[in-house]
């Protein structure tokens, strides 16, 4: 019974607790916001990483060659007939054009490397051009073809690390047999030599560390493995000693092996690949790749360094030099990658395109649309408007809900067992793919349609019935038109899902390599085909590095299609949505 200030500690206590509770509140709230942030960030990373990989694939580096279509090359029979033109050696025509562009390349091995600038499949494209227009025979013709995939990536800066170093002095080069001696008036090579020396030392250190590790591990491995490990350690140790020895440059020159950055000297249309760098930084030795090998006091020269060592990349120094020369001579142009859209699948990434998969997807979607939408809408109308409440309809309802959650791959198994093995429909065909996907999409369409039908107020039905319409008339003349926007939206979303589905189509054999696009007609439904997502799956484990970019580009196209679909759905919903 007092009004002493004893209440104050309680109040303080409460305030302290309140502060704590507010902190907890803030933490909780932040956790929620963070969760959304993480999800959005992942989405951005996903789209960003795929876009950064895929966008460069929409342009292609193309080689523009003036080819001479000599009659004796392309028309062996000399009668200009289709059969004769088909037997022409078009690859030789292309090879001749390249040899003309690089007259200095004569050795057999070098020529083989040179012809690696393009894939021989382009000869077929040249043949098609000639077959289209036989008047070309005997004339020269400007032929454009995609550069080999690795060089394409190189020019886009996605294959190697490279840089151009500034030079100050004047360059003089003289040949002595195969070896070129280069001399600059200032110490232009010094920085480079230091770098190479350091990288060699670093490499030696790594090797020595590895030797250490192996020696330590020697005690723990079973006796059977010991000799092998010992040999490995010895080999590494020897290599390290060798490297250290080379790095000391006993004869005043550092050797440039395939394991260190490549150095290329370019001067007025000539190019040298360096094999030795002098430690004084003023001179170097190398080999001529392009040109005569004679340079007098040139002040216009550059040092081009490819930091990725030659042994760790797929294009040789030679190809890089030739490609750079072609770029300089403006024989390589950058164009929109039409091959990606105009071609079907190919083993060569630069010629591989999505046309076949796109056609396959269109054919499959046509089947899916014409089956799943009517059947789905009919089912929903029956269940929502006609079905008596009894066990059978309950069973159907449960069934549909469960079907919606059945893994898509199980639908593929169904398609394989029923459509292909039982009905004997052709494998890999859009027809079967469409059937499987429509069964898969059916629950989505049904559920969306039922929701749309439920949203139509009962008063509409009652009014229709009240003026004497039959039940069917009430449903088909009044309820369905009002529910149509919702049905359309649901169907489009279901179809978009089907467009992105892969797993069930793998089961029915739509996963084969198919080099021809199916025809966009009735016959196309039973021809072997593949679809966009499956094409993405196929390319994603392509051996060539360039397929990665193609995969990402195909994904971007697929995503664009799906976003288009969904945008239409959203537009329809916004435009026709009606709230009762």
């Amino acid at each position, binding site marked *: 019974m007092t009004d002493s200030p004893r209440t104050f500690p309680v109040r303080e206590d409460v305030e302290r607790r309140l502060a704590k509770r507010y902190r907890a509140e803030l*933490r909780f709230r932040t956790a929620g916001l963070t969760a959304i942030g993480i999800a959005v960030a992942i989405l951005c990373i*996903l789209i960003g990483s795929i876009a950064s990989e895929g966008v460069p694939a929409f342009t292609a580096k193309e080689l523009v060659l003036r080819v001479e279509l000599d009659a004796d090359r392309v028309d062996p029979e000399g009668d200009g007939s289709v059969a004769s033109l088909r037997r022409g050696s078009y690859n030789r025509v292309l090879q001749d054009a390249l040899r003309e562009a690089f007259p200095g390349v004569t050795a057999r091995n070098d020529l083989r490397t040179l012809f690696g600038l393009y894939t021989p499949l382009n000869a077929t494209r040249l043949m098609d051009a000639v077959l289209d227009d036989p008047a070309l025979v005997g004339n020269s013709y400007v032929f454009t073809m995609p550069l080999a995939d690795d060089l394409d990536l190189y020019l886009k800066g996605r294959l190697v690390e490279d840089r151009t170093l500034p030079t100050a002095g004047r360059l003089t080069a003289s040949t002595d047999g195969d070896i070129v001696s280069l001399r600059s008036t200032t110490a232009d090579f010094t920085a480079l030599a230091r770098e190479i020396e350091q990288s060699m030392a670093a490499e030696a250190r790594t090797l020595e560390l590895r030797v250490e590790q192996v020696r330590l591990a020697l005690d723990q491995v079973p006796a059977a493995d010991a000799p092998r490990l010992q040999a490995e350690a010895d080999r590494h140790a020897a290599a390290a000693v060798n490297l250290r020895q080379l790095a000391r440059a006993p004869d005043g020159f550092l050797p440039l092996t395939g394991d260190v950055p490549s150095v290329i000297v370019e001067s007025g249309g000539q190019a040298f690949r360096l094999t030795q760098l002098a430690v004084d930084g003023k001179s170097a030795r190398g080999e001529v790749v392009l040109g005569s090998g004679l340079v007098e006091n040139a002040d216009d020269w550059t040092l081009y360094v490819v930091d990725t060592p030659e042994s760790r990349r797929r294009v040789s120094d030679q190809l890089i030099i030739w490609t750079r020369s072609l770029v300089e001579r403006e024989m390589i142009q950058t164009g929109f990658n039409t091959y990606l859209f105009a071609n079907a699948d190919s083993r060569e990434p630069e010629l591989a395109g999505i046309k076949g998969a796109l056609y396959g997807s269109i054919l499959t979607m046509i089947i899916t649309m014409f089956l799943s939408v009517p059947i789905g809408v009919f*089912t929903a109308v029956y269940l929502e408007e006609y079905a008596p409440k009894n066990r059978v309809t309950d069973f159907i309802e449960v069934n549909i809900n*469960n079907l919606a959650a059945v893994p898509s791959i*199980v639908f593929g198994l169904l398609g394989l067992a029923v459509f292909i093995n039982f009905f004997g429909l052709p494998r890999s065909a859009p027809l079967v793919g469409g059937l499987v996907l429509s069964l898969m999409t059916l629950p989505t369409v049904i559920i969306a349609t039922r929701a749309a039908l439920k949203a139509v107020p009962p008063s509409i039905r009652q009014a229709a019935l009240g003026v004497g319409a039959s039940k069917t008339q009430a449903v088909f003349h009044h309820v369905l038109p009002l529910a149509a926007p919702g049905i359309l939206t649901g169907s489009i979303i279901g179809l978009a899902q089907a467009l992105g589905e892969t797993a069930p189509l793998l089961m029915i054999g739509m996963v084969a390599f198919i080099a021809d696009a199916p025809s966009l007609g009735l016959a196309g439904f039973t021809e072997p085909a593949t679809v966009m997502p499956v094409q993405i799956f196929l390319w994603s484990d392509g051996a060539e590095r360039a397929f990665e970019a193609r995969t990402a580009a195909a994904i971007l196209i697929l995503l664009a299609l*799906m976003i288009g679909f969904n945008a239409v759905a959203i537009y329809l919903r916004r435009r026709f949505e009606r709230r009762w």
Partner: protein
Amino acid sequence: MAFGLGLDCMSIITIVALALLVMIAGGFYVGRSRAITAVEGATAGLHSLPNYHGYYVAIWTGVPAFFLLGLYAIFGGQLVDRLAVSELRAQAAEINRLLDDTLAADTDFIELNHAAENLRGRVDALNDEISALRNARGDNRDPDRLTRLRAEQIEALNLSTAAEDAVRARRQAVVAAVGADAVTDGASERALAGYELAQAPRERRQLFLSDSRRIASGELASRDSVALRAAAQAIAGYDRNVKIGAAVLALALGALGFGLTRARISSQFRARNNVERLVTAALLLSSVIAILTTVGIVLSLLFESLRFFASVPVLDFLFGLQWSPQIAIRADQVGQSGAFGAVPLFAGTAMITVIAMVVAVPIGLFSAIYLSEYAGPKFRQIAKPVLEILAGIPTVVYGFFALLAVGPAIRTLFTALGFESVVTQSALSAGLVMGVMIIPFISSLSDDVINAVPQSLRDGSFAMGATRSETITQIVMPAALPGIVGAILLAVSRAVGETMIVVMAAGQGANLTANPLESVTTITVQIVMLLTGDQEFDSPKTLSAFALGLVLFVLTLLMNVVALRVVQKYREKYD
């Protein structure tokens, strides 16, 4: 030309289809005008509106005929094949009989056959003995003898395979000789084709048929021979006949439907009721398709699984620790049965699902809570669709993302942390990416559930002075718990059935491991592995995919049923 023939026959069906369309339009018009003339233009006297009479005639003109054409489209090819093959066989009956006689008289063949049979008997006996020993208990167990028997069995199997090869070779020689004789005797080309077809092994038979089908339709075949061309001729003949038959029958059905229904039309005819009955029947039929799909799934999975379990015991499949179905390359190979213990697959599936849930449940749940309890309408309007984009991205894109970015990142990270030999394709990478895929699934389902908790509960809590977070953790969450559990269960079933992410990101090694940095395999991955590429349909290897499919189906079905139950129960509480 053969090509022209293919085109001709194609156009027969097209023409019939077009004719039917015209007949349907005509049917509608005739039905309508006949109804009008029946009451001399006073349409009020009709029981049904004139259009319904038209619909009635049109439906009966078109539907049965198109149904027939549909049947033809599906089964026509098979029918033609059957007819052609049986004709070829009949033609070749004579040569076949000759061959049987020759074989019966060929002492070499009989002897070889006898030897092979003996060896097969020995293998069977050894098999029985081994399985008896394997199941033996107590004193009867004798591992040494088992090893010895196994060695003997392998030897016997090899001998028996060799013997059967010899029998086959001898038979081939006789077949060729008889065939050559038949050619000199002037047998017809079709007979020879039938002979080749009858004597070819099963897979060659398929090739023979598909080649002759290609020749018949003027396409490029993989090879070409006199026999093939004769078979192609037979096929083309039957193809034409069946096509014409189908066309005539379809037209007749159309005409019949038209005639019968046209006669029924009168002023009293209840056309609308008839049409509506048909419409209702069509609606019912559509909803039956959903059931048929389920039935089809269950039956096909069950049927193939039973065939699989005939060669591999159920318990071995469900509880075996070794999964290596790839051994079965040839039917007569040693160790043909492979190892079909699915536990490594279940374990891999479980691990990836758990990782996915560890990612998806907290992020999804907290997103849902923030969106439904804290966010203003504007933020919600933007954030919700963004989350839903995650749900709309095809799974193959997630798989590529795992390959491109997540796998390498994990490898770099864990190598830097001192782990050795981290692979790009690991359970962790697949699980993480799958978790991301499932976030919107959990967040939108939980969002619905949380929104369904009555506002009065929240208001009561606020009135007691609770903060928002206290209200959420102590009032809203407990009330929403059943729904959230249901949502998580649905998400788990989704993760278990997900295919592309794991196929691309989780690797293929059937490792029984608890280390998420190793590559594991899942049920779905194995189904894909087993069924892509060339396969013979009867081997246990192929059939095991269906057994795995059955397990997957049952598993996801159970989870869905439980989840729906839980959610429904919860709903009843507040309605």
